[in-house]
């Protein structure tokens, strides 16, 4: 695998060469028509971009030349100078030198000296006559041995990569099918071929996934400006720190979370961080701190938005949840702070203006939650009153493949994404207790409601679930404990099958109207397997609990 630095350099090269080509074209246009405004604007822009890129990569000489050329094109554009006389050969030499330097970077050679050129450009800026040397006069010779080169990078529409990924998804399904068939048929030659196909398809899949990865930085780097603007508008003083920019993630995932992240950052500045006066009063430094960070954790990417503002007042959220009828007063009193904060993500919860003012949070957090849910990710919030709040987005690196737990219920196979699965337990009836018509299991110090999945999926359409009865439960119960928005729920299933990476296909119309299923996947034996959507399942349980 290439080093990150080398990858950056290749990207720089590709862009720089593209700039160079465009510069050569535009300066020729300018020679024909010295007042060509679009060409001037382009040249100015190209020089500016090249300067920025070159300086970021540490190629000071390229930056110096581009900076001076930018200044001169700026002067011509503003009609303070004209593209004529001795300026023309110097600028042409400048563009040629830039090309030469870029090629030198590409070949890891030493960059040519630019002292004369820089001196001449400085003279031009001051309005003095440049010293024309040999360089400026032997244009013709140089043309003869100029090389034409094509970029090493290809720009590709994300749409094409999406298509490629879909095809790979199909291929993986067929691959598993072929592997299963080859084992059934038992022909050694076929098995060898199938194993080989398995490996190739695997590699192909990872290559396509790799091609879709971009740096989180490509999104993070847009935030300094956002933070500045929002902070100014809100009259807050905020310092933004960014870390983990080079963590890589699927481009579409980054696209989907863009709005969510924007939302969280705006919220943090608008409602989290206090005004400088309030901060000083609270004994904090006047300048608020906001941090955007990314890190990898196993196969997931964690993105965090942390502020050192006033935090979330758990008690007022608790009161509000009771007022809005989301939970009974007695039950609310027992909830731990984490469970209370989870109410912030309830749809509609944020609609109430008072909540926003009291708790300081909640504007459209359900929208953020939905975006993360759609990716099969998790959204978590931690907060210490008076000290700040951290939102954590747990995201898959890639959208193609998801780890899932396969199980059987009434002779059908189902899959449940591992992202939402906490643990799998087998419990005897003695381990289960009936409380308020609901089964409760005590697992690792936590009381978890348990429901037969059969009752949720096949139960009657209307009305609550029938009250749980200990007598109905005999023998060992296989229970999958799922976790959504800090709520744990145990699902009794018939049989655990195995853990497997699956490719989820979206549910086709008109069945997509049933939101209990996030999609379908095809198993190696050709069987269709429904993928349960844990958020929808949890909501169904909450709506129907006895």
């Amino acid at each position: 695998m290439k080093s990150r630095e080398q990858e950056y350099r290749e990207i720089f090269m590709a862009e720089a060469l593209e700039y160079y080509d465009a510069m050569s074209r535009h300066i020729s246009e300018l020679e024909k028509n010295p007042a060509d405004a679009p060409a001037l604007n382009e040249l100015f822009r190209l020089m500016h971009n090249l300067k920025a890129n070159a300086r970021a990569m540490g190629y000071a000489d390229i930056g110096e030349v581009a900076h001076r050329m930018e200044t001169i094109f700026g002067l011509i554009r503003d009609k303070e100078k004209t593209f004529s006389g001795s300026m023309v050969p110097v600028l042409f030499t400048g563009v040629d030198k830039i090309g030469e330097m870029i090629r030198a970077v590409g070949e890891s050679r030493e960059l040519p000296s630019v002292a004369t050129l820089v001196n001449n450009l400085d003279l031009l800026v001051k309005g003095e006559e440049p010293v024309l040397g040999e360089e400026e006069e032997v244009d013709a010779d140089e043309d003869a041995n100029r090389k034409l080169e094509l970029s090493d990078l290809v720009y590709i529409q994300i749409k094409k990569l999406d298509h490629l990924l879909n095809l790979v998804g199909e291929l993986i399904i067929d691959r598993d099918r072929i592997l299963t068939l080859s084992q059934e048929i038992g022909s050694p030659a076929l098995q060898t071929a199938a194993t080989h196909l398995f490996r190739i398809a695997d590699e192909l899949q990872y290559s396509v996934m790799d091609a879709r990865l971009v740096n989180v930085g490509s999104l993070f780097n847009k935030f300094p400006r956002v933070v500045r603007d929002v902070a100014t508008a809100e009259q807050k003083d905020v310092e933004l720190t960014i870390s983990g920019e080079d963590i890589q993630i699927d481009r579409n995932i980054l696209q989907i979370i863009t709005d969510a992240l924007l939302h969280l950052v705006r919220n943090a500045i608008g409602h989290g961080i206090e005004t400088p006066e309030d901060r000083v009063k609270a004994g904090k430094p006047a300048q608020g701190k906001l941090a955007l960070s990314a890190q990898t954790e196993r196969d997931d990417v964690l993105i965090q938005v942390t502020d050192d503002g006033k935090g979330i007042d758990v008690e007022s959220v608790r009161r509000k949840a009771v007022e809005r009828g989301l939970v009974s007063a007695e039950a609310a009193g027992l909830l731990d702070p984490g469970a209370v904060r989870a109410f912030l993500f309830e749809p509609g919860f944020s609609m109430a203006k008072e909540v926003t003012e009291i708790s300081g949070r909640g504007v459209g957090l359900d929208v953020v939650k939905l975006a993360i849910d759609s990716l099969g990710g998790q959204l978590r919030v931690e907060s210490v009153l008076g000290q700040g709040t951290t939102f954590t987005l747990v995201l898959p690196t890639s959208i193609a493949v998801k780890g899932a737990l396969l199980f059987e219920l009434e002779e059908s196979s189902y899959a449940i994404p591992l992202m939402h699965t906490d643990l799998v337990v087998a419990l005897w009836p003695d381990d289960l207790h009936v409380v308020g018509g609901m089964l409760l299991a005590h697992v690792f110090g936590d009381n978890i409601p348990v429901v037969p999945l059969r009752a949720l999926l096949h139960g009657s359409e209307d009305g609550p679930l029938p009250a749980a009865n200990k007598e109905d439960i005999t023998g060992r119960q296989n229970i999958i404990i799922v976790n959504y928005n800090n709520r744990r729920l145990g699902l009794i299933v018939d049989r655990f099958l195995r853990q497997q990476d699956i490719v989820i296909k979206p549910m086709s119309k008109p069945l997509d109207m049933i939101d209990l299923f996030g999609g379908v996947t095809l198993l190696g034996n050709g069987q269709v397997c429904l993928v349960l959507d844990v958020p929808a399942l949890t909501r169904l349980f909450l709506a129907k609990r006895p």
Partner: protein
Amino acid sequence: MAENELTGSEKKAVKQEVLIQLIVFRLGSEEYGIRIEQVKEVTVTPEVARMPKTPAFVKGIANLRGDIIAVIDLEERFGLRRAGGALPELSFTMAVEANDYTIGIIVREVPQPLSVPVSAIDKAPEFIQDMNIHDKYIEGIARVEGRIIIVLDMLKLLTPTEIMQLQPKAASSPRAARRKA
């Protein structure tokens, strides 16, 4: 489109007869037809996985050459099941193209193609239209050599709300999850 053809047949002025191609299948004791261009393919019913939270006549989902489609039983949908007439072990599935998706319809016997002159299709009388359904999905009744074939307009029959009878959505939607205060 259907309207034009029907007025055309009423005038009976057309000498050169226009033929339309139907795929004819049996539901209950009657014969039904669908325009051939609405039928994508006919195949032996593949393995169908049951899908919870769907009306009984939705038999489940099946894998048809990599496409996951819903498979429905129109006999059950129309209440045409003869006593004790469960589906046979070997049945056939017509993949029918609705507006923007494909759906499978289970039939007992292999569906047959049939060419019918447009003039042989009469408009269905109002009263036989199912009262519960707003869109009129019976395009007409074809009389061919003593047979009576009910011609269905699949595009009208297979709207998503029509198929799902709009019932399952509410149960698990976030709105329903909020308990009544």
